[in-house]
């Protein structure tokens, strides 16, 4: 049952006008590329090259370790300069393979060859996706081959392409849907071929009517694919809200989309599936929005993974105002970064430079129990109480009031008139509880 929206959520200023009209431009890499072995959820990959080795474009340089993990593929050819800890978005150093770019872009054998996916079995496709190192490119970075290997493949009846792009400022998915819809649909068809009983949906927020029109026109004759117009509201692109809006089914924190018969993948991820399967090109590039009021010329770039954020800023004309805050990702769920010498990874969706930090200098005041956080919470929680328990370190009460259902979308904190840093507290409490659960 199509619902097209969800309960709760917020309507922040979307800021998309800055970069919406800018076509994707290809950015060439610099001299040094950095590939962290952990740019996905799950076990870090294990480097399989040594310092001094030559590598090629498309060569696996770190191998997935275990089931939930992902390969890391070199996006350039050149020499491995170092394998060492490098600063990443997370704010800490992560083991990374540093490649000196020889600018010759020599590729591995078979790279870029056309391939007919209809001649492949589901297992073969899954292996290609795994080899290509594809992970969820919307931000979470969950290994895609794991999503494509549900316990009960027969039960999968819905494949959803997440084109909601509900985070303010982000326009990379928008540009992809506008500029390369055929790749998106091809990627979706590849996925559908793995699950014969599934129907494909492309969910797009209705603030992108042009994308909806283009995609709907292209799937006119595809009886197995439908474009769904979703109400524009944050966090429409959150997995649970998206599944609900498209199918009317609900999943909670302890369930996977597959439990509701769904597989959900972001736009850029589905395009990457097309690239890997149909064009023998592993995940070596991504689309990234560089924007914000401090950026001279906000743009959408296609970049090789491993290039530094500093290159993105330079290519967008540098700063026109002193930035107060740099954010990797969107303003609602992205990470604030303190250095621009960090690499673009598979799940870097945007670089946002704001000249004014709205949060610094906010003095939280007493809670007036207005309940706006309760209304805004898409998960139907009571953030006001969760915050009370969080700040009192009462993890038992926090869990009892369903705190572990929170996925830190930030809606409560956005609406709070007393400006209380609730999401931050929930994040800490949830980490602490999860760490204790792992110990058991």
């Amino acid at each position, binding site marked *: 049952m199509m619902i097209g929206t969800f309960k709760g959520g917020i309507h922040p200023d979307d800021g998309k006008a800055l970069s919406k009209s800018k076509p994707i431009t290809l950015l060439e890499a610099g001299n040094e590329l950095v590939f962290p072995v952990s740019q996905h959820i799950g076990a870090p990959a294990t480097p399989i090259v040594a310092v001094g080795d030559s590598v090629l474009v498309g060569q696996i340089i770190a191998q997935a370790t275990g089931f939930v993990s992902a390969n890391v593929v070199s996006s350039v050819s050149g020499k491995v300069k170092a394998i060492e800890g490098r600063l990443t978005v997370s704010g800490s150093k992560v083991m990374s393979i540093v490649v000196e770019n020889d600018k010759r872009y020599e590729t591995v054998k078979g790279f870029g060859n056309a391939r007919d996916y209809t001649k492949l079995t589901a297992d073969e496709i899954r292996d290609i996706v795994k080899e290509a190192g594809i992970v969820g490119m919307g931000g979470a970075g969950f290994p895609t081959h794991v999503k494509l290997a549900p316990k009960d493949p027969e039960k999968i009846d819905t494949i959803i392409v997440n084109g909601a792009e509900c985070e303010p400022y982000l326009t990379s998915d928008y540009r992809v849907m506008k500029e390369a819809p055929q790749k998106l649909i091809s990627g979706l068809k590849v996925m559908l071929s793995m699950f014969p009983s599934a129907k494909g949906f492309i969910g797009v927020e209705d603030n992108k009517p042009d994308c909806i029109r283009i995609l709907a026109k292209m799937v006119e004759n595809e009886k197995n694919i439908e474009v769904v117009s979703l109400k524009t509201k944050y966090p429409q692109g959150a997995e649970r809200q998206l599944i609900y809006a498209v199918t009317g089914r609900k999943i909670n924190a302890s369930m996977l989309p597959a439990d509701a018969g769904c597989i959900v993948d972001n736009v850029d991820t589905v395009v990457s599936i097309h690239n890997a399967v149909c064009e023998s090109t592993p995940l070596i590039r991504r689309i990234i929005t560089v924007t914000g009021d401090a950026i001279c010329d906000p743009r959408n770039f296609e970049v090789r993974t491993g290039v530094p954020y500093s290159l993105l800023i330079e290519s967008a004309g540098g700063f026109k105002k002193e930035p107060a805050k740099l954010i990797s990702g969107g303003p609602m769920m992205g990470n604030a970064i303190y250095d621009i010498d960090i690499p673009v990874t598979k799940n870097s969706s945007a670089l946002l430079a704001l000249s004014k930090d709205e949060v610094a200098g906010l003095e939280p005041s007493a809670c007036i129990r207005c309940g706006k956080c309760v209304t805004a919470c898409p998960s139907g929680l*009571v953030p006001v109480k969760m915050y009370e328990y969080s700040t009192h370190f009462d993890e038992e009460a926090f869990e009892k009031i369903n705190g572990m259902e929170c996925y830190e979308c930030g809606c409560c904190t956005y609406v709070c008139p007393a400006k209380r840093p609730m999401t931050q507290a929930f994040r800490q409490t949830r980490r602490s509880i999860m760490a204790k659960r792992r110990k058991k």
Partner: protein
Amino acid sequence: MDKKLLNISSSPHIRGEETTSSIMLDVVIALIPAGLFGIYNFGINALLIMLVSVVTCVLTEYFYEKAMHKPLTTHDCSALVTGLLLAFNLPSTVPLWIPVLGGVFAILVVKMLFGGIGQNFMNPALAARCFLLISFGKIMTDFGIAAKDGVGAKLMYGMSSNGYAMVDGVSGATPLAQVKAGQTAHVMNMFLGTHAGTIGEVSAAAIIAGGVYLLVRRVISIRIPAAYIGSFLVFLVIVNLIKGDGVNVNYLLGNLFGGGLLLGAFFMATDYVTSPVTPSGKIVFGIILGVVTGIFRVFGNSAEGVSFAIIFGNMLVPVIEKYTIPKPFGRELVK
């Protein structure tokens, strides 16, 4: 880029525009129609009481925080709202020491001593009103004399020779009291507000206008007022049916527009601090208020019942919240 320090913080990195003071100012704006009507109806004395009440409330908070070396919170405008609401709950005839005493009680005893904004378990303005009502019953229920000053009173009652408005020989009986005594309510006058009562409660039209503003601005949700008013009317109908009186529309409208019901339902029962935060809790809270108000009005000595009903409801809020924690998304059916 030179190494200028960048700000780091946990997401989200943007915030909505609403603040505590912007919400409180919205409430003040919503109170303006009722306040203006109060001045129109009761004359300059009403304005004076409002000013004294507001100034007392704000100054009490200010001096308490200064004396206790606490951060000042007067800029959040909540004391302003309390002051206005307290004045709205007073007859226009009260001497000015009444709003002073009430304001100090509301802010100092009910609010600050329990921890300041967000911590009081009773609505400060209503608690002060009840305190004054119990302590100075005669002053607090004397509605008559003032009717000579206000323009509206003159329109309604006409001017008797001595300049005092007299209604059915009972000086200053509120229409609600008349309804309780079995008289027919003048519904249109009650809707407009040209009758005796406390400063802010008389005009149903002005209060509804303010209530609609609060709803449109999403300062309050419809849950509490709707549940409150709805359950109150249903209660009256049931009582009437049991008594065998049948459904008397005039009686119902008289009870709806008369007394503090609308002011209470839109402005007092919806007080954030003293009402439940859970969506279903708001409905339970509203129903409790409706029934208790009905009991007080039908079976009590006084024609009024709203203030005590809301204070009573305030006490139950923690319990209501405890049992109305919503089921999270995707867990509605699972245990």
